[in-house]
């Protein structure tokens, strides 16, 4: 089975619109939304949820005031300053390290498992989908990304499908690292701006750090062709395959507003033609 993960470094470059278009074009695939922190793919592919699960991960300390002797050992040991003067744990600051729980001489601290999100197995008009929702202000996004990709792979195996199309998160931190391990290749969606170029270079370095083959395409290329060409030159230097250029096309937003992929919305639009070319290059290159 092969897995293509779409990442970008910078947010808002068009990852989700492009993967939605691929969903229209690819056959025999499972969709996976690994941007668990601000998942958007469902707004286009409109999944019908078949299975619903809680995501439990990490712990938070809770001090039982009746047992607490206010010895202050927990406050001395806590490196997150998460325990107030009157011995109440700030659940946002609590790292879940359990040091206070372990050392409390009165055993006054509970350390329950957190439910910090949900994950779903669904059907869409493009095939099966694994997706998730991390609770607001929650941690452990990396673990949820790993879980949802595993569930996507399981779905693909059960259905005898050989491709997983994964929408990755922005950035280069924990959830992005979690979305890279074991991927066949990453497709970086870059934007031709100084920010887009800077962020593309950092996420390309991240893919190289984890030895995942990378490809790049540039969205809204005509916004600043100089920056676009600079990104392509950087890519060639680093052995990153340049997959194509997508012009600025309002059809992407119009399609999104209607809950459609650009392929469904207007197959003849310039944006759609460019994405189709990139998809065909991808199919050949990865022998999909």
């Amino acid at each position: 089975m092969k897995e293509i993960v779409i990442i970008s470094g910078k947010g808002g470059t068009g990852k989700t619109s492009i993967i939605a278009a691929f969903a229209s074009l690819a056959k025999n695939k499972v969709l996976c939304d690994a941007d668990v922190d601000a998942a958007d793919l469902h707004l286009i592919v409109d999944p019908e949820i078949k299975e619903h699960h809680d995501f439990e991960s990490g712990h938070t300390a809770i001090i039982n005031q009746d047992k607490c002797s206010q010895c202050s050992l927990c406050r001395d040991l806590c490196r997150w300053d998460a325990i107030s003067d009157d011995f109440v744990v700030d659940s946002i600051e609590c790292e879940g390290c359990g040091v206070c729980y372990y050392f409390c001489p009165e055993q006054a601290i509970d350390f329950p498992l957190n439910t910090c999100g949900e994950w779903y197995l669904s059907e869409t008009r493009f095939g099966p989908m694994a997706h998730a929702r991390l609770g607001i202000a929650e941690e452990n996004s990396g673990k949820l990304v790993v879980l949802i990709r595993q569930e996507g792979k399981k779905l693909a195996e059960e259905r005898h499908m050989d491709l997983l199309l994964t929408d990755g998160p922005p950035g280069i931190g924990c959830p992005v690292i979690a979305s890279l391990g074991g991927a066949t290749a990453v497709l970086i969606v870059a934007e031709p701006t100084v920010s887009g170029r800077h962020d593309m270079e950092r996420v390309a370095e991240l893919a190289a750090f984890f030895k995942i083959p990378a490809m790049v395409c540039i969205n809204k290329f005509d916004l600043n062709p100089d920056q676009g060409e600079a990104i392509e030159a950087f890519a060639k230097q680093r052995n990153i395959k340049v997959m194509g250029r997508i012009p600025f096309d309002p059809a992407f937003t119009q399609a999104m507003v209607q809950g459609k992929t650009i392929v469904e919305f207007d197959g003849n639009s310039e944006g759609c033609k460019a994405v189709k070319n990139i998809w065909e290059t991808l199919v050949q290159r990865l022998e999909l």
Partner: protein
Amino acid sequence: MIISVASGKGGTGKTTVVTNLAVSLGSDVQILDCDVEEPNAHLFIRPTIEEVKTINTPVPEVDMEKCNLCGKCGEICQFKAIVVIGDMVLAFHELCHSCGGCIEVCPEKAITETGRELGIIEKGHRNGLEFIHGKLRIGEAMSPPLIKKVREYTRSDILTIIDAPPGTSCPVIASMKGADFVLLVTEPTPFGLHDLKLAVGAVKILGIPCGLVINRSDMGYDQVTKYAKKEDVPILMEIPFDRRIAETYARGDMVVEVMPEWKEKFVQLYHDIEKIAG
């Protein structure tokens, strides 16, 4: 006062708002770029950097001469970052959250701390504007500890403007907590609205007053405005789609310098925030 500029969805214009707001106000302002995974504000501010600091987080180092292989370090560690296997203790530094539990629990005092590099912090200025940002090391997973280090540069005598990362999880919370006001930048699209709702949820958990900047406001999708009215989130600025703004941004230039008529609007934005945040 601390203003944190956040968004939920990426690419809506946080950095444009942060940099243009700061430059419009001139002096007595500092920018803290807390989007340490992909910091961009420096590309527009182009500060003169005066100070570069490597930021480490403590991780355990075991002295095998002293270790009696009791395994208590592995028991206390919630993150599987230290484990006794046979006659060896393996410390996985990249998994360590730096809680210090293993050091505290070790009966032989065999564990000391060494550092894992989180990234760097650079400090500089442009005219009267103070500039600080963090840059996460490529391959480092944990951004909140570096964000907290950047926030230690907050000065109480001047205005602090924070550029927060996208999303709503721990790095965003680390960039918003303790702020006096959160300015949310969104775009009027279904993705923008969906992620804005999550961001408003996060701001409410923290109990901070917030307001909205709608970027590319004339895209013809009015659900964001309706949502803002319903939730009583004030719309403080609307920036219509203008190819000149997009091109200015693409080049790394400042909108207020290329289109000076915007300066007054950003100054007004600050006054509106001041009124709400007190």
